């Protein structure tokens, strides 16, 4: 909220400067996000008197003006249509002055005439929005030519931008912030009652007989000129739904002249970010900014049937709001109606039929308290958030209704040169009852970790507006002030005490954390280890958005049974991913587009799948994507293929689990290459897959070359890892091993893995390991065959092997190779 420091000082005069005030209120929870000085950037702009005025010799729309700036006369060419008669005063930027937008005023020729300086509009000086004509100094202003504009127009101020938290509706007006400053600086600063207007009238005749006289409230005690307003039509107020509208006040102002506001008012509103419209509308805005309590002005003569009814809408009922849009309501929307139909959306926006117009003379000022939730729902439903709804949905002060009405009626009457009724309607459907809250100083000490004297707490709470209603033993009972809907229980009062004293006053204690028995779930450590292992193997970690488009999923041929967002930001991010492939592929495509030759990515994140439970299933997956080349040493790059993916998985699992997985031909997902992929399993259970993605999918994803992809189910992997347990140590072999090689020519359909397993089995338990060390295709190898060479390591753990035993075993191995695989031993 934008706040005028000048205004705050008027409401709560204290010595501290703007920076100290900003610091203190920030510490107390009213965060000042910016401070902007006003009236400080206008040096060289002064009040000047018009001495002569003549048409420009060549240009129709220009005027030659001579002004006196207190020191000298200047001839200026002016394009504005409203140059005053000689004697009138204007704002003059002397040559050399710098305007707020950064332009330096320099003498220049306009249509052959030398123009020295510039006569300014309020928009050019950024003191208002009017850019139509030049600013003309008010006759009542006594500033002499040469007076600095900031002094002459009283522009000096600081605007504080305060980021208010939603629990503090009391600070949505200057009165509330001033009260807060008073609390923090130890100065009592209660809202002042408005002085009455100069002219009033007796309103009795204007309130119908059926309005109970108990609803009438006297607005002022003071003296004023009583005028006759007996011709004013009468009015009554009826609240049909007291829960939604506990209180509704209506004041009358008669005989106003709608017209422009005085400069001080326009300037204040301009600085605080509001447009100025007319004196009456500006006055309602000023009251809003002063009290934080929205009011609404109706043209009294446009209220039909002489009454105001506050009721719920009927489903489908319609009304055009001030912004010209026809709105349709539901039975959950509260409306302000006249004798015939709706005239305003309660607390949100007025209707266009009853709004204040230039010819409005008599005004009904509404000042009410509405149920915050009701206003919020309506405002949300209509998508209509206004300064008014913003305050009502946070909760205005129900007890402020008479005061705010008095201020509003007085201000409008004064600005519009009308008269205000001395009494107003103040209909209370449900009276505000203050909340009683117990406060135990001992509890405060226990929560804050510091003792606070009971008297100090009491003093602070009373300054905040709480009223001590009972003190029994060590329990104090306070009533919360009506403007603090956020104070409802003990801890709220403890916070007030802590906040007003300042959190700095609370000591800093050595933390005391009792360790838990369960500790961190093992799976989280496991996930962390997987990430580290993946990085160690050379992969870069990616973090993608968890939402994408269904089309992305389709292109990648992954599951399109998705968890969808009801309100996505865009179609591109409307479905939760079912696989990590599209995200990684997107990153790889972008990388290839900017010329990356090697892409080695992994992501460890969740995928989302619809389920019958209230919440979808979230699976954690480890995905790896390799595209382009594996970098070798100087010109030794090779395109990634299946075996790179396999190797990376082996390296990761070996590191994390201490074991390499098995790779077998099997059913892989449709987006994988049917012939160049494998199922990855561990301890006999499939935990994922690895391979090259289907070339058609690669095309659809706009990826070049072979792309290797692997995906592992992390929860399953972890479960198996738990079963496998911690690696156990073994003694080293006592007896030496003997190695023998066997090379063979076999048909391609036999896998190296199955041959190796068979060779090992054939050794009669003597082979400790079988390792493929050579693979050859080509010259001298028949079509459909390949040459494989295995190194067999034989060892007997119990004795030294004799050549004879090894020869025998190796012969059996060769025999098996010939028999089972029709191998030609070489």
């Amino acid at each position, binding site marked *: 909220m934008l706040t005028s420091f000048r205004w705050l000082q008027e409401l709560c005069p204290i010595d501290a400067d703007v920076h100290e005030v900003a610091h203190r209120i920030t510490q107390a929870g009213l965060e000042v996000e910016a401070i902007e000085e006003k009236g400080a950037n206008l040096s060289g702009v002064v009040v000047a008197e018009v001495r002569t005025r003549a048409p420009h010799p060549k240009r129709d729309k220009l005027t030659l003006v001579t002004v006196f700036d207190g020191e000298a006369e200047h001839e200026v060419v002016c394009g504005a249509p409203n140059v005053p008669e000689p004697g009138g005063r204007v704002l003059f930027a002397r040559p050399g002055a710098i305007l707020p937008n950064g332009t330096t005023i320099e003498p220049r020729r306009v249509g052959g005439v030398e123009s020295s300086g510039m006569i300014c509009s309020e928009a050019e000086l950024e003191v208002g929005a009017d850019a139509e004509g030049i600013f003309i100094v008010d006759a009542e202003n006594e500033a002499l030519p040469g007076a600095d504009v900031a002094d002459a127009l009283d522009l000096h101020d600081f605007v504080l931008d305060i980021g208010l938290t939603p629990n503090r509706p009391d600070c949505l007006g200057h009165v509330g912030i001033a009260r807060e400053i008073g609390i923090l600086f130890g100065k009592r600063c209660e809202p002042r009652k408005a002085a009455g207007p100069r002219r009033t009238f007796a309103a009795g005749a204007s309130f119908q007989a059926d309005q109970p006289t108990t609803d009438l409230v006297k607005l002022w005690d003071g003296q004023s000129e009583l005028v006759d307003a007996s011709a004013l039509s009468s009015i009554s107020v009826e609240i049909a739904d007291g829960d939604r509208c506990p209180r509704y006040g209506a004041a009358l102002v008669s005989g106003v002249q709608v017209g422009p506001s005085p400069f001080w008012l326009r300037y204040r509103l301009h600085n605080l970010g509001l447009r100025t419209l007319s004196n009456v509308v500006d006055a309602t805005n000023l009251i809003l900014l002063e009290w934080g309590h929205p009011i609404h002005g109706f043209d009294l003569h446009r209220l039909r049937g002489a009454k105001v009814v506050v009721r719920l809408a009927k489903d489908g009922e319609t009304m055009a709001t001030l912004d010209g849009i026809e709105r349709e309501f539901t039975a959950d929307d509260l409306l302000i109606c006249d004798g015939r139909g709706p005239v305003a959306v309660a607390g949100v926006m007025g209707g266009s039929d009853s709004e204040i117009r230039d010819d409005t003379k008599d005004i009904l000022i509404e000042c009410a308290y509405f149920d915050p939730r009701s206003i919020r729902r309506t405002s949300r439903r209509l998508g209509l958030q206004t300064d008014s709804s913003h305050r009502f949905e946070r909760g205005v002060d129900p007890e402020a209704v008479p005061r705010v009405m008095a201020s509003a009626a007085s201000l409008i009457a004064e600005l519009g040169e009308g008269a205000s009724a001395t009494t107003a309607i103040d209909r209370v459907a449900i009276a505000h009852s203050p909340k009683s809250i117990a406060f135990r100083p001992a509890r405060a000490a226990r929560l804050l970790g510091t003792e606070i004297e009971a008297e100090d707490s009491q003093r602070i709470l009373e300054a905040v507006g709480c009223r001590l209603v009972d003190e029994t033993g060590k329990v104090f009972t306070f009533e919360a002030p009506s403007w603090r809907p956020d104070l409802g229980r003990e801890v709220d009062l403890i916070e007030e005490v802590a906040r007003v004293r300042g959190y700095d006053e609370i000591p800093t204690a050595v*933390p005391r954390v009792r360790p838990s028995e369960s500790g961190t779930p093992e799976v989280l450590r496991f996930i962390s280890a997987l990430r580290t292992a993946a990085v160690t193997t050379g992969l870069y970690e990616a973090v993608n958005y968890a939402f994408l488009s269904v089309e992305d999923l389709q292109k990648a041929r992954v599951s399109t049974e998705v968890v969808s967002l009801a309100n996505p930001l865009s179609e591109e991010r409307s479905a939760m991913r079912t696989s990590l492939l599209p995200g990684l592929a997107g990153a790889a495509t972008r990388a290839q587009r900017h010329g990356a030759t090697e892409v080695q990515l992994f992501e460890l994140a969740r995928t989302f799948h619809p389920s019958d439970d209230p919440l*979808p299933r979230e699976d954690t997956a480890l995905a790896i994507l390799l595209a382009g080349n594996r970098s070798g040493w100087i010109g030794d790059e090779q395109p990634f293929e299946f075996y790179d993916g396999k190797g990376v998985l082996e390296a990761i699992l070996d590191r994390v689990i201490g074991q390499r997985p098995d790779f077998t031909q099997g059913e892989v997902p449709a987006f994988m290459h049917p012939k160049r992929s494998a199922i990855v399993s561990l301890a006999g259970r499939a935990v994922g897959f690895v391979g090259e993605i289907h070339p058609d999918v690669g095309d659809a994803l706009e990826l070049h070359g072979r792309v290797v992809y692997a995906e592992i189910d992390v929860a399953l992997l972890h479960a198996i890892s738990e079963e496998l347990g911690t690696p156990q140590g073994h003694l080293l072999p006592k007896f030496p091993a003997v190695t023998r090689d066997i090379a063979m020519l076999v048909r391609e359909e036999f896998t190296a893995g199955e041959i190796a397993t068979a060779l090992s089995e054939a050794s009669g338990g003597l082979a400790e390991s079988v390792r493929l060390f050579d693979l050859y295709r080509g010259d001298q190898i028949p079509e459909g065959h390949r040459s494989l060479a295995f190194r067999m390591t034989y060892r007997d753990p119990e004795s030294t092997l004799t050549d004879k035993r090894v020869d025998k075993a190796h012969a059996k191995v060769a025999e098996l190779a010939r028999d089972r695989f029709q191998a030609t031993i070489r």
Partner: protein
Amino acid sequence: MAEPDAVQTFEDGLADIRGAYEQALRDAADEPELRLVNGRYVGPQGELTKLLKLMPKLPGDRRRELGQRANALKQEIQSTFDAVLDSIHRHARDAELTGLPLDVTLPGRWPMPGRLHPITRIRNEVLEILVSLGFDVADGPEVELYENCFDKLGFPPDHPATDEHDTFFIEGGPSSGRHSVLLRTQTSTIQIREMSLRQPPLAIVSPGAVYRRDDDTTHSPMFFQLEGFLVDTDVTFAELKGVLTLFLRRLFDEHVAVRFRASYFPFVEPGGEVDMSCVFCRAWEGDKERTAACRVCKGNGWMEILGCGMIHPVVFENVGYDAEKYTGFAFGMGLDRIAMLKYGIPNIKLLYDNDVRFLSQF
């Protein structure tokens, strides 16, 4: 049967070899040549080997003596061979030791590791500190029930406190409101989940992805938070200050000043925000000019870093804890923001582009 010529042949052979081998070996230019020459004498087809094959044809009375001479010659050849080989090696080593150095600027030959994403990296750093202080790590779902994200955390119904949480709702159920399913907007949901499962004492931290419908230059619709909380009997605000001060000093710099100011989050009270000295201009060093010119803290020397407070009794009531018996504190921080501050990342969008040129910087 002995052949008289055989003796002559044998003796001539020995003499020939003896006369030639030494020079031949010494003339060899390098090891392969040396081995070739050596093979010519003692290899399987070598001259001396051939002579030795004549042994059975020698007459019995000369066989022993000639055999000894042949073996002696073989040993002489061997030792000459060894000496020449040694000299060749020595020569080569001398050449390497005194010649042109290697081009050490050629690339190294070992696969390089990759890099952790900066979010993971900062998460590890943060967790390391908090775990060492005694906190356990926990985890929760990213798709959540409305009540866990808002109601049970004390967000009043229809209250503007939810305005900062512009929420993605999941299709299928109610598309907003109390019975809906949503993408969690904060990791504070973990408070409800963990407290519903366990009894105090609890000291938990939980990092994770959260989602809000904001997408502009400073907001990403998905980002990462870390929630921490401690529940026990007599946990105080003073301890909250202690933990967070320690945490920030360990994470950033032991000299940073930390200040707590009042703020509002529905699930804590008293609630606060924590500012620390700007780490960009190192405000604690007191260089006023540098701080005045700092774009990050806009010259005021402070930066907002996390939100915190004492867990609101309404949260305890909602999970069935005795709110009189237990107190606790909670804090939350944006891991993206901390990563950006700590690693000087200028734009949040870089975190989710997964451009290797960016990822390789960490």
